[in-house]
Every structure is written in structure tokens, then in C-alpha cells.
């Protein structure tokens, strides 16, 4: 079952083509790495898939809904975690969970029991009434991810979710991602860390608004005769005309 399909998806801002005819499809439960240098068009592409921006050209379906006309339904069926840490710092852990669960229309009774289960799983029980601003960054990111999938969406978009944390914490974060994928939540993740790219089932690499490569990490390494994803990425990114910002 495919969760995302995109065909010739294009986004132009005036003369500038941010996303240039990209096509791909992603299966249920897949962890899909969406790579590219800064300014390659990742964010623009992701925004179209989230229903935040309307494409200039091409077609696309997310969770079975059309990205032109059914953005409301799409928003109900996805989770989204942005590159900036984005829970409310002046609310407590519990309040944040409650708020977002409420926004996604989960029933109050269900929120209460699921919140406890989540806090238990993350080991945050003792911090449930702590203001989020007092948590260490790694904890915040784990919480942020858990909140993004609290309503059990069909898929979750993660925009550079692990910026600024150490490898050990990143590793723990990826365990949460695997856990979600096993439950059938498709994961669409952008990242700068090439070791993370290795964790993905499949990876696409964007250069200047186009998808220049798309396959499993192993196949990409073979295709580009490199022993790491970093090598693959460097080979492709070197050809970029656009300068990152």
C-alpha cells in the first residue's frame, strides 16, 4: 500500500524553480530519508506534501488524499515535527501533550490514559509537570516526536529532527522512529547526518530541485562506488549549481 505518491511535482516562486518535477512513491511503514543540501528544495517539497503549500505543477497523493483539494484531510492524517524544536516552552510536558492531542480531536478520556502510557514509555513520568523549557534538548526532541505521532497518523514528516544533539541521543531518537515504523507509521525524514541516512529503508537525494538518486542506502553505495552514504552525497552535491543558505 502506498502512502505517498508524487508525480512531476513542481513548485515555482516567480522565476525560481524550488522543486523541479520530482516523482516518487513511498510504502506504508517505510522510513524514507529525504536528503539534500540547504536550498536544494527539500522544505518546499515537504510543505507541498503536508498541505501547507499548493504545487505549481504535477500531482500528488498523501494518505490517499489529493494534495490540491484535500489538504484538510491530509492534515488530519499526518504528524509533523519541524527542524526547530517546536513545543510550547512555557507549557508543561503534560499540557503540551494535551493541547496537541486536543487539536487532533482525541477524546479527553483517551488522552489521559494514553498520556500516562507515553510518559511511562519515555521515562518522563517524574517530569510530567515540568515546563518544557527546563528539559534537556534530547528529551525535548523525543517528546516532540512523540507528540507528533500521538494521534497515530498514517505518516509523520520529520524536518531535520535531530539537529544539535549528540550521537548517543540521536541513536535513542532513532529507536523511537523504528518503533513507530513497526506500528505501521510511515516516516518521511530529512536530515543532514549521513549516518542517519544509513538507518533509512530508502533514501532520495535532491540537488537543485531535482531528485538525482533514489534507492536503498546499500544500492546507492554500490551505484556510486562509495563505501558510505557521505561519499554518495558528496559526489552528487558537488554538481550543485545553487548555493546553500
Amino acid at each position: 500500500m502506498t502512502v505517498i505518491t508524487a508525480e512531476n511535482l513542481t513548485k515555482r516562486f516567480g522565476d525560481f524553480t524550488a522543486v523541479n518535477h520530482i516523482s516518487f512513491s513511498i510504502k506504508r511503514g517505510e522510513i524514507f530519508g529525504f536528503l539534500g543540501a540547504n536550498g536544494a528544495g527539500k522544505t518546499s517539497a515537504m510543505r507541498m506534501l503536508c498541505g501547507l503549500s499548493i504545487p505549481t505543477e504535477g500531482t500528488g497523493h498523501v494518505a490517499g488524499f489529493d494534495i490540491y483539494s484535500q489538504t484538510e484531510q491530509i492534515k488530519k492524517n499526518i504528524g509533523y515535527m519541524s527542524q526547530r524544536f517546536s513545543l510550547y516552552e512555557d507549557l508543561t510536558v503534560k499540557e503540551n501533550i494535551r493541547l496537541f492531542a486536543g487539536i487532533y480531536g482525541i477524546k479527553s478520556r483517551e488522552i489521559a490514559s494514553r498520556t500516562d502510557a507515553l510518559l511511562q514509555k519515555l521515562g518522563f513520568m517524574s517530569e510530567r509537570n515540568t515546563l518544557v523549557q527546563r528539559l534537556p534538548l534530547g528529551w525535548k526532541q523525543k517528546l516532540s516526536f512523540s507528540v507528533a505521532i500521538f494521534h497515530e497518523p498514517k505518516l509523520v514528516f520529520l524536518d531535520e529532527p535531530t539537529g544539535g544533539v549528540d550521537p548517543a541521543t540521536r541513536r535513542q531518537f532513532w529507536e523511537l522512529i523504528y518503533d513507530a515504523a513497526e506500528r505501521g507509521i510511515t516516516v518521511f525524514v530529512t536530515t543532514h547526518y549521513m549516518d542517519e541516512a544509513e538507518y533509512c529503508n530508502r533514501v532520495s537525494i535532491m540537488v537543485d530541485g531535482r531528485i538525482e538518486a533514489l534507492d536503498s542506502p546499500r544500492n546507492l553505495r554500490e551505484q556510486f562506488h562509495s563505501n558510505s552514504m557521505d561519499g554518495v552525497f558528496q559526489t552528487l552535491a558537488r554538481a550543485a549549481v545553487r548555493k546553500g543558505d
Partner: protein
Amino acid sequence: MKQFIAFIKKEFHHIFRDTWTMVILLLLPILMLILFGYALSTEIKSVNIAIYDPSKDSLSEEIIRKLESSEYFNIIRMLDSPFQIEEEFQAGNTGMVLVFCENFYKNTLSKGDAQIQLLTDGSDPNTAVTITNYASGIIKSVMRKSFASNPDAIRVNIITKLIYNPEMKSAYNFVPGVMGMVIMLICAMMTSISIAREKETGTMEILLASPMKPLLIILSKAVPYFFLSCINLLTILLFSVFLLKVPIAGSLIALLTVSLVYIFVSLAIGLLISSITSSQLVALLLSGMALMMPAIYLSGMIFPIENMPRGLQIVAQIIPAKWYIVAARNIMIKGLGFSSILKEFAVLSGMALILITISFKKFKLRLE
């Protein structure tokens, strides 16, 4: 609806947990009132006055004696001709000149058109008003005593005249002015900053990617500040009535109605500002410079609009605070009815409608 309530609750959490927001919301209005209140009601003692008294009869001399013996006035000069009045003011050490008409006592008795002019220096309007009030109080009490047996005979006209600033429209009415300012400050500035904050921290992106409708997002931003503005409005009114003794002469309902419309205008401006800026600092500067400055200087709160150059008078017409302050004064101070503020009411409603429409349109565009 449940989303909406959850969201409003969250807004209140933001407000109550931020010390500075609370300080601005609760202390600022009261601080402003007290500041303006006491700046206005400073007691005045030993004002130098000069007197021109061509009649020199028993009644005029009694009045002069009473003025002299009061703690408020020092008679520094008796003038010989009306031409010396201007001189006296220009010399700068006289706060008021008292002018009796000729045959003061006789006129009081027979024709009933006896006149006393109280001339004051309007370049300092607050002092001018206070001392005219004191002086006319003293004059009236002398008159009452002198004609105790025949009160109907008191038909003296006390004419008070402000030299240099005859309109003197702004000084009394600081309470409407402070209301105009505080509401604008709280609604426009706080709303725009709180939306800009969400854009800055990235939470806005999360909200936009959620099923929460954009309209609902900004509405739930506006609701808490709407409530807080209403509370502020009431605090200001209670304070001014009970502490500063400024009465609400007209209808309270009319005053509250026009205030509500003004709150809507201010909220709409706040939403508009937040839709064109994405940083808290810019929102602060925009609402500070583009809203507060004109609201203070061009609204007629401090300086009468009538005395401004033509160009600024025209600019003043597009400032919502100007219309609100006029309306609030008409009702609060002058005690006029709702019919007297129809024009102001219509202008403010029009502004509210236009601004709300624009800011909703703008907000949708920003989603792209």
C-alpha cells in the same frame, strides 16, 4: 469547539506564566492613570495674580480681600488700565489677572449683568483650570454671603478666559485618553507579539500543519486579549470613578458599547501587524512606533487636534484612538447621549470591519 477552548486555555497559560506580560497587563493601566491623574490634580498654592478694578466699590474690594487672604493667591499688582494686562502676562510672573467691570456692585444689584473676567495663561492649561476653579469658588462664596438675604439678586457672570490656548480641550479628559492608549497597547501590541512569537519559535508551523483551521488559530489568539482588555477597561473606570473622582456623566452602556468596538479595531490592527511580520521585535517596534506614538500625540489626548497644523489634523482622522477618545469624552465627561457619538461609532465600526477583513485575507495569504 473543543480545539478552540483547549487553545484559548493555552493562551492564558502563556499570559499568566510570563511575568512581563502580567506586569504590562495589570500594572501599566493603573500606573498610567495614577501618573496622569496626579500630573493633573497637583495642588496649586500662592499663585501670583494681578487685578484691574475700575469700580473700587465695597463688593469688589471684599472679593479682593478674600482672594488675598486665601492660601492660593498672592496679589502682586493692582493694574491701572486694561492695557497693562498683556504686559503682565508677558512678564511671566502672573498666573491670572482678575478684571472687574465698571460699577460692579451697582450692576450686580440693578441690571444683573455684573462681570468679572478671570484671565489665565493657557500655555499651562492644567494650572490655568485649577486656579480659575479656585478663584470662582471664592468669588461665589463672597457673593452668597453678601446677598444672603436675597439670593435671587446674585446674577454675576464669571467669565473665564484662557489666553493663548482658548480651546483647552485635552487637559481634563485624561481618563478617556488613557483608556484609548491602554486598550490599543494591550490588544494590538500584545496580540501581534504573541502571534509573532509563535512564528519565531516555529510552533506556528506545527499548528498550520495540523487540522486546526487558520481562522481558529488567530481567533483563539484574539479572545484572551479581548477579555483582558475588557477587564482593563473596567479597572480603569473603577479607578477613575472611585479614586480620581472622575464621574461617568453619561450612559455607561453607551460607553461600554463604543469601547467594545474600539477593542475590535485594536485587535484587528494587532492581527494585521502580526500577519506582515514574523519577529517579535518587529511586531513590537511596529506597534510601538506606528500605533502608540500617534495614539499618544495625534489623538487629541495630550495636544488638542484643533491646534495642530492642517496636515497633522488630516492624519489624525485615520487614528482610531482619536475617534474613541472623542466618543468617550462626550459620554464620560460631557454626559452626552448615544446620539452624540453616532459619527464616531460609525467610523470605528467601519474601521473594525475593514481591518478585520484585511487581516483575515492577509493571514490566509501568508500560509502559502
